[in-house]
């Protein structure tokens, strides 16, 4: 039983210094791989590496133990420079059982490090994973650096005396693996130990067991059986500032709270749990002391319905879901569009259609967001490119919704929502306030209040909140007279209102930043992306330049309306490539709007693009 982390003597173990490293933890759903991965990530972040993560969850809560559907994994790329993706392929794979090995080995690069829990490789588990021969002895692992560790046994020995017993003993297995990984990759140990103490403060035996297992794993690394050498990834030269490590769902929730403060409006979140958006609800529900009211409604429609009521009543109203839930909300979003009330609709996209792949990333709701309502109902649409940008984009969504009195769709996806990266904390005071002007006085002749009499600049109608004397009025889903706001079926009026609502939204293009292009000035090929392909496209462009070729990249955050300079930008290149995790949605829009013969790189496989695939496509177009 190890109390202390043994300090290796000026080490006889050689250390290889790497620029970057991709690690994947894989095991059964109950093995704690997400936790191990997150701890490794946090330790790396605090050490100063730049990083990006990609968790991979099975959709079921707990598939039968040891089976392939039950495998859960967590991948993180750490680097000494500005890293953009979680990596195409792991350099090091931790496989806690045969199913994890079976599922993930093909991704491990040749010569990569394989850390295996040999205790799990019994006949039953091998059979469940579909192995006829034992891979540990049939030579199939010869191309890798294999570190075999009887983790169950060593964990049991390590936690002896901690106070845990029975099934709980082996639950600390993931900490053993984590400790060994910490030694192997020179990760600081204090953050993990401190975390365990805090997290399990109310369960001292568990805290003790986890800590003992972690230290035992670390110390195991020093023994001669363990490894031939260790690896080091130095801290990255990030921009000066204070950082935290955050995932997209959390950053989005915090951004909504920030928007509430900047606007002075209480935040209302009406929603229904759905993978992968539920964590936004969980995070917001904890912050009641910010005046946040979360409402877990009976269904998706009540989620958005209650938000519409809250908007009518003068709140910063938000609803959130994923594809299937947004589909249910279509009619209600159409109502919000007709009512011209501020409302934020968050769609954390997932694999579709129908129930699809709830825990996998995809970008297939773009056209749905732009057109997925009956009738002519153009709504502003924004898309978040990275986890840390979720904060500022939530604020931007609120700004547009309030200023223009309109629902706004904010797109995220599984990758942004659950992936994490270091986020340089903004200066909160420097974020501008969001101006809110509630109507106070009648705006029409004879002391009347005309609820659809518009602001001349924004074409927003006045926000007259119940409780305000003298402004009693009725709004609804039927078409309205442009001046009086009364129900009207007049043909000219319907044309006018249709055009007016559309114009109000398209005019927002004058209020958003122009599209920026990065890369080579004289490039002939432009790669245009949106949403979570941001990191992959940048990384691919970097590789293209490393091969001596030129390429430019641009990334849209405003999908509707798009920046005013988009056409001009697109036309100044000979070729345009649009990589998307769908069958070509932005592609269709660009071709239709700008009559450009753009080319798509499309993938609908429930996983992000590999950098190498985007790189190869660009190279193909460049040559």
């Amino acid at each position, binding site marked *: 039983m190890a109390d202390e982390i043994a300090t290796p003597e000026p080490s006889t173990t050689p250390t290889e210094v790497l620029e970057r490293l991709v690690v994947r933890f894989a095991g059964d759903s109950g093995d704690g791989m997400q936790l191990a991965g997150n701890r490794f990530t946090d330790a790396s972040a605090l050490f100063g590496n730049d990083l990006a993560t990609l968790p991979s969850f099975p959709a079921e809560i707990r598939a039968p133990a040891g089976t392939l559907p039950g495998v859960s994994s967590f991948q993180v790329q750490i680097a000494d420079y500005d890293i953009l993706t979680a990596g195409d392929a792991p350099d090091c794979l931790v496989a806690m059982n045969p199913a994890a090995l079976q599922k993930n080995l093909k991704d491990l690069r040749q010569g990569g490090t394989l850390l295996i829990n040999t205790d799990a490789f019994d006949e039953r588990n091998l059979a469940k994973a579909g192995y006829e021969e034992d891979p540990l002895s049939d030579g199939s692992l010869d191309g890798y650096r294999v570190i075999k560790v009887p983790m169950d046994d060593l964990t049991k020995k390590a936690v002896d005396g901690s106070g845990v017993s029975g099934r709980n003993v082996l639950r600390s297995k993931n900490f053993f693996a984590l400790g060994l990984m910490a030694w192997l990759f020179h990760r600081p140990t204090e953050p993990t130990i401190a975390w365990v103490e805090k997290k399990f403060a109310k369960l001292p035996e568990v805290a003790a067991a986890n800590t003992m297992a972690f230290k035992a794993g670390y110390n195991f690394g020093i023994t001669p059986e363990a490894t031939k050498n260790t690896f080091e990834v130095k801290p990255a030269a990030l921009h000066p500032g204070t*950082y935290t490590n955050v995932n997209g769902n959390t950053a989005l929730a915090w951004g909504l709270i920030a928007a509430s403060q900047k606007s002075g409006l209480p935040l209302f979140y009406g929603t229904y749990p759905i993978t992968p958006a539920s964590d936004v609800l969980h995070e917001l529900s904890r912050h009641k002391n*910010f005046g946040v*009211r979360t409402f877990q409604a009976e269904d998706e*429609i009540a989620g958005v319905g*209650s938000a519409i009521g809250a908007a009518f009543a003068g709140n910063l*109203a938000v609803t959130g879901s994923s594809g299937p839930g947004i589909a249910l909300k279509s009619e209600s979003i159409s109502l919000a569009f007709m009512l011209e009330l501020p409302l934020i609709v968050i769609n954390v996209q997932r694999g579709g259609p129908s129930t699809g792949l709830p825990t996998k990333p995809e970008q297939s709701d773009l056209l749905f967001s732009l057109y997925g309502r009956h009738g002519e109902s153009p709504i502003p649409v924004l898309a978040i490119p990275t986890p840390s940008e979720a904060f500022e984009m939530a604020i931007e969504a609120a700004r547009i919704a309030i200023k223009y009195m309109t629902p706004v769709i904010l797109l995220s996806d599984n990758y942004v929502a659950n992936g994490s990266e270091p986020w340089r*904390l903004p200066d909160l005071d420097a974020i501008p306030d969001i101006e809110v002007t509630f109507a106070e006085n009648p705006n029409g002749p004879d002391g009347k209040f005309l609820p659809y009499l518009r602001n001349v600049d924004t074409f927003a109608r006045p926000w007259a909140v119940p409780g305000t004397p003298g402004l009693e009025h009725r709004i609804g889903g039927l078409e309205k007279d442009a001046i009086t706001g009364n*129900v009207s079926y007049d043909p000219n009026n319907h044309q006018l209102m249709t055009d007016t609502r559309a114009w109000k939204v398209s005019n927002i293009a004058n209020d958003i930043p122009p599209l920026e292009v990065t890369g080579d000035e004289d490039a002939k090929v432009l790669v245009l992306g949106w949403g979570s392909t941001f990191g992959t496209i940048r990384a691919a462009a970097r590789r293209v330049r490393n091969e001596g070729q030129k390429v430019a990249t641009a990334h849209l955050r405003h999908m509707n309306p798009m920046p005013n300079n988009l056409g001009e930008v697109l036309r100044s290149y000979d070729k345009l490539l649009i990589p998307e995790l769908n069958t070509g949605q932005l592609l269709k829009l660009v071709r239709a709007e700008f009559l450009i013969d753009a080319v798509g790189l499309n993938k609908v496989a429930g996983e992000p693009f590999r950098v190498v695939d985007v790189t190869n496509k660009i190279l193909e177009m460049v040559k």
Partner: protein
Amino acid sequence: MTAPSYTRGDFQTDQEVRWCPGCGDYTILASVQQFLAGLGRPREEFVFISGIGCSSRFPYYVNTYGMHSIHGRAPAIASGVATTRPDLSVWVITGDGDGLSIGGNHLIHALRRNVNLKILLFNNQIYGLTKGQYSPTSEVGKSTKSSPFGSIDYPFNPVSLALGAEASYVARTLDMDRNHTQEILKTAYEHEGSAFIEIYQNCNVFNDKAFIQLTGKEERVHNRIDLEHGKPIVFDGGAKAVVMRGGEATVVDSSSVDPKAILVHDETRPNPSIAFALSRLSHGPYGPTPLGVFRNVQRPAYDAEVNAQVQAASDKLGSGDLHKLIRSHGTWTVEASSSNGG
């Protein structure tokens, strides 16, 4: 500030009321307008939210804040108003189609949560606005545009449904009985939490005389069972009484039972079983049918609970500090150096 003094006219809008001549909705509108005027509460504090249907045109004709929303969704939308604005008086106007068909789910959850809403369900046992299909309260065998061979749908009993959904206030009234309607409105208004009122409303175009057994001069004497809190339940000029027998509420001849056996109505009984039994005296407006307040119990209203939790969180944790929040996952600092542009 002195309480405002209103007349019914102050609650009328400039919109031409477009229900069919003879529709029961006119009377309900007048009852509500008169009731609101009599409250002396600032007009701007009232919000009427409706769904879709003839019933749901109502907000356009009441001079308060209002929203004509979408089919079935008014209770959900109204929940967002009521929960965030406990200073307002929020009313839901719905019908047997809007509230019990497409809107059934939102209705039962609003009642279960006890959201502070006054829900007026105009039950005319037909789909009027879409011109005459059967509804969830239409009787079996009814021949309509969509059931030319007779409806095979077994109808809801809305009062039973509301009681089953844990509603803390449940009542039934008739469109034509303006005094009765106003009494019900008053007790509903004073009730803290959800108040569900089923209003039997005559659609003279698509389902005329559906409630004749309760409104006809002859018939109503024999069929109206007026529930009054604290009083023994008797009707038909005293000739009939209601007793509990074998777990059910039953109508008997008053002369055949000991007066002490006659059920005394108690709206405030915590257990809704007897209220439910009373609601089963008739499955619809046929034969002896109870009217009045079935149940009126106290339990915490949803908006009060939501806002109390928010307040308690602030009291315990202090007012939210965004600066601290974004640092709450741990931070590290990168110093300026020659290699990072610092």
